[in-house]
């Protein structure tokens, strides 16, 4: 069974929000649109987005990690948002595992949003219906698009390619490999939702130096008749938070 999903690599996400507005622009004029904005030019502008990028700080100065954290519907394999829906508007597609809202059935009762632990459903307050990430179902299955473009808008936009897209049930897919190799994890596993989307953790590269790296026989100073100064011991590296 196919389960399409996003895998988000926190190791390279710089928090640029490209995925946020590319999602908005694709979807507002797509089959999930139009996505309303209120007070667009007034105080407290607000509107419907399917994807948000948040920022967290981990640790205290100077051992601080700044984590940019994109979040959209995780297309759970046990989506609590689906059974609670009274109309059947909230459903999970059998063919690809995408959790969708049927905008013509939805009565806007918000129960599905209450049932989702992740805060990724947003009621469109103009249309009065619930909306959420569609995994760009209207792009990825559009045979009229060239194969390269049959990917979610946010994935194509992302400058750091922090967003991978594919079938996590296909062990050979890039997403499955990334989850396996890089310890991809699920959010709030305790909620029992089995999110399809996963996150890849920060990884840290360090350079190992040895004292004798610093004193070499063929030292350029000796060419000029000078002797290298003493090599000093090394300080500690920053405490690593994640």
């Amino acid at each position, binding site marked *: 069974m196919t389960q399409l999903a996003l895998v988000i690599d926190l*190791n*390279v*996400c*710089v*928090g*640029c*929000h*490209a995925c946020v*507005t*590319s999602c*908005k*622009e694709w979807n*507002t*004029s797509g*089959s999930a649109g*139009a*996505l*309303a*904005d*209120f*007070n667009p*030019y*007034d*105080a407290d*502008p607000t509107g419907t*987005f399917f994807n948000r990028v948040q920022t967290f700080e981990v*640790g205290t*100065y*100077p051992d*601080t990690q*700044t984590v940019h954290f994109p979040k959209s519907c995780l297309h759970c394999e046990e989506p609590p948002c689906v*059974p609670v829906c009274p109309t*059947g508007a909230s459903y999970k597609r*059998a063919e690809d595992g995408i959790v969708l809202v*049927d905008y013509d*059935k939805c009565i806007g009762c918000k129960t599905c949003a209450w049932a989702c632990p992740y805060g990724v459903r947003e009621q469109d307050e*103009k249309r009065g219906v619930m909306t959420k990430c*569609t995994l760009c179902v*209207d792009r990825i*299955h559009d045979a009229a698009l060239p194969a*390269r473009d049959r990917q979610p808008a946010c994935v*194509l*936009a992302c*400058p750091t*390619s*922090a967003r991978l897209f594919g079938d996590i049930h296909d062990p050979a897919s890039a997403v499955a490999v990334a989850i396996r190799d890089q310890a991809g994890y699920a959010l709030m596993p305790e909620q029992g939702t089995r999110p399809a989307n996963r996150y890849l953790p920060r990884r840290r*590269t360090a*350079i190992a*130096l040895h004292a004798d*790296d*610093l004193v070499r026989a063929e*030292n350029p*100073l000796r*060419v*000029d008749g*000078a002797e290298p100064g003493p090599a000093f011991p*090394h*300080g500690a*590296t*920053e405490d690593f938070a994640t």
Partner: protein
Amino acid sequence: MPSSPVHDPLAPPAPGAVTETRTTTCYMCACRCGIRVHLRDGEVRYIDGNPDHPLNKGVICAKGSAGIMKQYSPARITRPLLRKPGSERGAGEFVETTWDEAFALLEARLAKIRATDPKRFALFTGRDQMQALTGLFARQFGTPNYAAHGGFCSVNMAAGMIYTIGGSFWEFGGPDLGRAKLFLMLGTAEDHHSNPLKAEISKFKRHGGRFVAINPVRTGYAAIADEWVPIRPGTDGALLLALIHELIALGLYDREFLARYTNAGQLVNQDAASDEFGMMARNAGGDPINPLRPHNFLWWDRLTGRAVADHAEGADPALLGAFALPDGTPVAPAFALLAQRVKAHTPEWAEGITGIPAATIRRLAHELGVTARDQGIELPIAWTDWWGKKHDTVTGNPVAFHAMRGLAAHSNGFQAARALAILMSLLGTIDRPGGFRHRAPYPRAIPPNARPPRGPQAVQPDTPLDGAPLGWPESPDDLFVDAQGEPVRIDKGFSWEHPLSAHGLMHNAITNAWRGDPYPLDTLVLFMANMAWNSSMNTTAVRRMLADKRDDGEYRIPFLVVCDAFESETTAFADLVLPDTTYLERHDAMSLLDRPISEFEGPADSVRVPVVPPTGDCKPFQEVLIELASRLRLPAFVNADGSRKYRDYPDFVVRYETAPGSGIGFLAGWRGKDGERSLRGEPNPRQWEMYAQNNCVFQHHLPRSLQYMRNWNRDYLLWAQQMGLRRDFDPIVIHVYSEILQRFRLAAQGRRPGKQPPDRLRARVDTYFDPLPFWYEPLEGQATDRALYPLAAVTQRPMAMYHSWDSQNPWLRQIHAHNYLMVNPRTAQAAGIMDGAWLWVESRWGKVRGMCRYTEAVEPGTVWTWNGIGKASGAWRLAPDANESRKGFLLNHLISEELPGADGGAPMSNSDPITGQAAWYDVRVRIYPAAPGEPEESWPQFAPAAAVPGAAAKRPSWLAYFAGKGVRE
């Protein structure tokens, strides 16, 4: 549960709509990514990155993806506007006019100025990308008073490195992260090359590279660094000197590279009594190679123990030691002077200045040195160096750097950038794989050949300016000063106050014009610059100056023309507003004559073509300039008989040549009659079409043997000369030691014939024109009581906003509706300020009120905020109570454009004393809580301006954009 959807998610959302895709170039920022604009029934449905574009390779950013909301912004200005008769400047009251009237008015006014004193016309441009045209217009008009944003942007980065290695970061070169193993990024939050940089950093990390970020703040790029090294603002120079110290002390430098490709081995005159002191010793009988820039230097050949011509066959220069020439002149290799300079600059010394533990500095130096030395890259590419030596391989040391405004925007940034370039050279990483790589037209001569005019006589009525308005002084004689050594330009560029101000000092233009110092202006044209807000320092005062009158009731700046596409804070001050098109509506050329989009592999340039028709009466500023230039009969724009030469801007771009028959024009691609030639060739009437057919971009791939070591790569240098990228054919040897700076110092010491600084500036020039990099406390810090103003305040660019111009964008403003002052909790608590509370930030120059946000990701002595989020009430067609103006604040109110002169002398620009780079990030502040009864609102506030004629009658209270059906509201 029933799962047959009523709503078919795969059904076309707008059945029967006509859709089409066009390619052009984004201008939601200066990065200039290739985009595809998808239209549905003529409306923009989707903008995505063009996968076939070499720059962004398909990706796009938050701003680029929000272009739709810019195109349909209610803040668009759609008619030419005249200040309402009788209304005050700044009130923003306008009446509509026509283009005919606007042109007639401008023509009459400018013709008169041109016939009398052309310098009373000034043209300053902000974040534009058409300096090739605006600069040409100014020069042809005959005014020296032209500059673009460079002076207040990052000229320190440009000049500091160009005067050292003939290239720089910014738009001129960058880190080769594809092959680097260790990457040190200093003071960069977003950068110009922002999408490609993001892509590169990500790939670099995925390939196991180690990324170290040196920045007082950890956000954005620094967030994903393997190590964050917090540093006190304005102290990178000290860090870099300490790194150099450690590399030299341990011998962790690339001696071979230094000896052959830099002036490290060149002998410097050490005879303190001689007027040639500190200058390179010359080899009288040697080949000067280029009479304009003689290269007859001397080495001390360590093998034979005598002075020889530099690069003499079989010789190897001594880098250390002190020697005497046969005539007894004491000399020392430049490198020895550098080693001596950094001797005292130990990591412990730097720790006290930077706040970075000495052990960390040492470790970083060791990582740099060992990685560079032990992880060498060898590519099987044969090439020949300028002196004829054949090399079988191109080698590289995989240590890359990047730096931007964190280094540049301090008054000690030129020397810091030079220190960085020297550190990179020590590691042997210039234009080599894994290190720094140039982007065409760089590398250029040190300094590049364009020179500013040399004196008042360059400005003559009805005559083009003698020299480009901007250039690169090589010696004091290139300064643009009068007989007393005083400035000719309104911004005092190229004067003794800021001799190497290669990009001008736009940040002082308004203040100087207001004061009439050195003289008053008549007409000031601002293009794409929000000078009444985020691009001036001391904003409140500058706004007052713009509207200030003389005793006789005439405005001090008599006529102000603003060309903008939107209702900014500045348009409210204009006497005449020229409504520009958006980037989706016009032709543009991102030319090699300006700052192109070249990649490491070779030159590239690009264009914009209109994808939607202009809105209202909007007219591209390019067309305005061509029209005015034709009406004023500026020589380059008319035929011999004075008749108009170019139909319009596209016609100009196709047919204009830098010199008759030069074959060099604005665009390098598809030249020649049928578009068969590149870079140089006859004009091709179908050039635009060919660009449009080719994703609006032209890229020339150099053969691999011409892609590296271009400062000294014989075949590249020959090719560059043939293609007109360079005037001369001489090697570009790195200036570890800067003879050019020494020339200015000697002049200041009165030891050099030619132009002399006025006495009041002698000590200043003598101090800062040090031929070797050094660190000094930024000027504002030198003159500020640290006990009173203990904190440094800096800004950063948010990735999802461009300066001031995106607050009109409802998608982007939801992400950044207002800004906070970001403060380390320890610092805030010491000042008694709670998270989220209102606080005052105060400098010597002013204060602002805003809200505090705690952050653990900032060095405790620094506070920061996002750049340009705070807005003046009512600007950008936002409601007067919009978050941007009621909660957001602008740090610029705290930054002075001038510092008081020493000993009560006349004030001088708050800028780098060498380049005139605006010292944005030098400001020192203190913070304290807002008093309990104070309004919970940012301060200062300004009276909102009214909507201009032609603007939409009301602000929509909601919108739901769906392409093909219009903005629904």
